[in-house]
């Protein structure tokens, strides 16, 4: 069982103050093996904080990130799964699932994690899953009205991944999940 935290679009300190306290108390160091961040942190403090939660941190560049070393996209293998990460402002139309599926084909990954819209989505199709963990701080978005803070935790176990989404709605953390099983290569 490998736990992968996926989050992004925090926009600290332009549009948000901090992660919600209820989220921070869940992100205990040592419990998570990998962090995937879609981008738009936007400050070094956020990067440093995420590193304390888990040292294996992968970040892609959002349009407001100033760190020149964040790549436009990234692929990594965790267990049996190939994951791809990209902020998503590069994929037009923004949030369009078919265009995101094209990026998924291009990166040749089972799981594609993107952000930018601040809207949680998990889209299952024949070739894999496209996940958007939303905005971890509920930051303002011109694309999505009424953003609730959200993040995703993936539990990778063999050929199966369970995707848990945590959303802060009216002060309470709600959890939902979807299952995905890949056929052996």
């Amino acid at each position, binding site marked *: 069982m490998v736990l992968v935290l996926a989050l992004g679009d925090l926009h600290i*300190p332009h549009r948000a103050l901090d992660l919600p306290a209820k989220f921070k108390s869940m992100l205990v160091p040592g419990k998570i093996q990998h962090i995937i961040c879609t981008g738009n942190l936007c*400050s070094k403090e956020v990067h440093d904080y995420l590193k304390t939660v888990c040292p294996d941190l992968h970040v892609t560049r959002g349009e407001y990130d100033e760190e020149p070393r964040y790549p436009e996209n990234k692929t990594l293998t965790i267990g049996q799964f190939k994951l791809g990460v990209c902020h998503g402002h590069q994929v*037009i139309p*923004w949030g369009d699932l078919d265009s995101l599926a*094209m990026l998924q*084909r291009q990166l040749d990954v089972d799981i594609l994690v993107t952000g930018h819209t601040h809207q949680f989505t998990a889209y299952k199709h024949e070739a894999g899953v496209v996940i958007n963990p939303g905005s971890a701080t509920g930051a*303002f978005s011109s694309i999505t009205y009424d953003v609730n803070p959200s993040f995703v935790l993936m539990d990778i176990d063999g050929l199966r991944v369970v995707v848990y989404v945590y959303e802060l709605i009216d002060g309470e953390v709600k959890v939902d999940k979807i299952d995905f099983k890949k056929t052996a290569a």
Partner: protein
Amino acid sequence: MSNVIVQNIMKNGTCISTAEKVDALFELIKGLIRDFDDLHDELDEEDFKEEQSFVARLIQMMHSDDPEEMLKIICTVQKHILTGGAKRLPFTVPPLIFSTLKLIRRLESHDDSVSKEDDSAMAKKLFQIVTQTIDVLSSVPVPELALGLYLQCAEAANDCDLEPVAYEFFTQAYILYEEEITDSKAQVTTIHLIIGTLQRMHIFGIENRDALTHKATGYSAKLLKKPDQCRAVYACSHLFWLDDNESIRDGERVLLCLKRAQRIANASQQMSNATRGSSGSVLLFIEILNKYLYFYEKGVPQITADLIQGLIELITSTTGGENTSPDPAADAFFASTVRYIQFQKNKGGAVAEKYEHINI
């Protein structure tokens, strides 16, 4: 001293809810807001960033639920941060802009028909404030940040059905692009922000829309590197076919974009041949193929199975050719595209019918 005050306020989590209190707080922390010759501390860059980050967060906490009071707060914040000087503006302007956009959205979501005129007047005033504030960023200068903020405002104006305001924001964004964004990497990012935002606009009449799309396609074709040109041009194809808007469905222009992208990909191949002796990767062609499939499925009449078949054959013959250098990434992409076509064929119904004429 000011740092301690700021940290205390944030720990308590309370909002600073009147313009008067905002004024008082800014007075208290004036050392953070602008330079004072005699009290000027030499902060190193990291400390300065941290300090301004605090100020940015404080600005976010200056909030009232009452729109009239919030407008006063916004004006007060603007008054203070504009004295901050070039180093501080990139930190303090964005949070003010987003606070303002949040208020605009609140006004726009008001269903109350009684206050509609007042709301509209206030919204227009708020748009003037954001324009003035972003304009000041030119003194720093931070053109990429300013351009991004103009585009955010354009979306807000779009949501408020204010076509001239939205057009003006785009104009300012385009001027910045043409005059200030010179770094080729920055141009690529920025052009995608422009295309992505424009793609979402529903407010523009035909003439305004044409003017803006024409410019966007032009910028795309003039990016420095051919692969970047190709990608930006095919991204522009989405400007001419909107799912959620029947009046913006111009298959002819979609096809023109994709063909233009293909010509650029060709040119890129030829350059590769000429300079490196090998015909480079077919990657761009595979990307364009995927875009053809996208529009084919949308039912764009000008995107035909024949066109798609032709491109598939071009890709397979080029890949097999003796002059082509192997590219595992392109091969993997083509393989997953072929798998996708096969999935669609196996779906049955209308989708499978469409894919009947495409052979892989």
